[in-house]
């Protein structure tokens, strides 16, 4: 196991870097896009609700791999040339944002409706009430399920291996197929994923305690 690591550490570190980078990008953008669709669905306009509902249902119910492959194969063919890393990360962002939208929406609905009535009666617009009063309270409720989404996101980033995204899983596949030491290779890959997800999990717990 040591030799696998010493002989391939550059590839492994590269993979770790790509996985981390993809995860951070996807986390950031899926949180924004997810919250956007959650708010859209809570808006008092039917047409916006329907748009949000369609987005969420479509991307929540298509396998991540299909979404990623779409961006890897179809988009370069008809739209613009993007590499595997970009295609995979976009797929990951869209897929995760659908789940985050559902989570954030549940959080918004968990906030006492009196808060919105109070804010609107006070003269605040829907958006002002949302950003100053409702969302801060909603996020407090959804930190535990959001933590789950983030951990899933890091693990799901292994989809990049299928679209040549240079991530951990991709490097692992290459090392395994050249050294034939599959057991040790995938153990090392697993440990490297843990190095990302464990601190994330710990941090979310810490945040949950701090805010409650």
């Amino acid at each position, binding site marked *: 196991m040591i030799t696998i690591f010493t002989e391939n550490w550059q590839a492994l570190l590269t993979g770790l870097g790509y996985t981390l980078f993809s995860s951070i990008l996807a986390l950031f953008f899926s949180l924004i896009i997810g919250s956007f669709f959650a708010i859209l669905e809570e808006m008092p306009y039917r047409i916006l609700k329907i748009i949000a509902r369609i987005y969420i249902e479509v991307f929540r119910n298509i396998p991540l791999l299909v979404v990623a492959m779409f961006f890897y194969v179809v988009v370069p063919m008809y739209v613009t040339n993007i590499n595997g890393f970009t295609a995979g990360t976009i797929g990951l962002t869209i897929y995760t944002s659908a789940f985050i939208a559902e989570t954030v929406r549940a959080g918004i609905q968990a906030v*006492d409706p*009196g*808060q919105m*009535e*109070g*804010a*609107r*009666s*006070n*003269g*605040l*617009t829907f958006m*002002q009430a949302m950003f*100053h*009063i409702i969302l*801060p*309270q909603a996020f*407090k409720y959804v930190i535990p399920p959001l933590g789950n989404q983030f951990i899933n996101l890091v693990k799901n980033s292994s989809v990049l291996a299928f679209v040549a995204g240079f991530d951990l899983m991709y490097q692992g596949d290459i090392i395994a197929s050249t050294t034939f030491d599959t057991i040790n290779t995938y153990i090392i890959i697993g440990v490297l994923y843990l190095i990302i997800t464990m601190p994330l999990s710990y941090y979310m717990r810490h945040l949950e305690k701090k805010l409650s």
Partner: protein
Amino acid sequence: MAMIEFKNVEKYYDKFHALKNINLKVEAGEVVVIIGPSGSGKSTLIRTINGLEQVNEGQLLVTNFDLADKKTNIDKIRKNVGMVFQHFNLYENKTVLENIMLAPRLVLKRDEAENKKIALDLLETVGLADKAQSYPRMLSGGQSQRIAIARSLAMKPKALLFDEPTSALDPETIDDVLKVMKDIAKNEGITMIVVTHEMGFAREVADRVVFMADGQILEDDTTAEFFDNPKEERAKKFLSKIIKH
């Protein structure tokens, strides 16, 4: 020009006829108390005045805007018409001071120093200057309601709506809230519409009393006339019951 005017207003919840042919005029500076048994439509009526409930038919003019017209920008009315709720609805994620300062800052773009001064003065007025940095969860019901009133007053509203402001309070804290409300009624010249069961309050400060039952206004009279000489049978019954308690 009346501050608030209902003209043949009808309101339905699906098949349920919540407000029936409401005609009501409230002049600027008037204090009107609405009473009646539960389920009579009092809360629905007061909630239509700042658009928390939509009216289905008729006209509802508030500070010159027609609320029955879907094109009316509701935020313009709410800027001038405050509301105090049964369950306070203070912003749970903000301190008391921030609760009071938020809307003037965002909606009126009031200067920060002036905003703070007004907020602190209001806290003084409602007797809770020491609670500026507290969060709503740390307050008693009576304290919360006084903060909620201060929050509404910070907007310098033309009219204030009170939807059963003392119904969720412990008996010993009700008087503090009523005192603040009486001071507003007597000193501020703000139009007030108050849904309440506090008959002492109505007698002391109301210009008029409106009695509702089954979604209708059955009686609309001066305060003295209503209490001393009620005309409707249901109003008489209601008064005899509520005064006995």
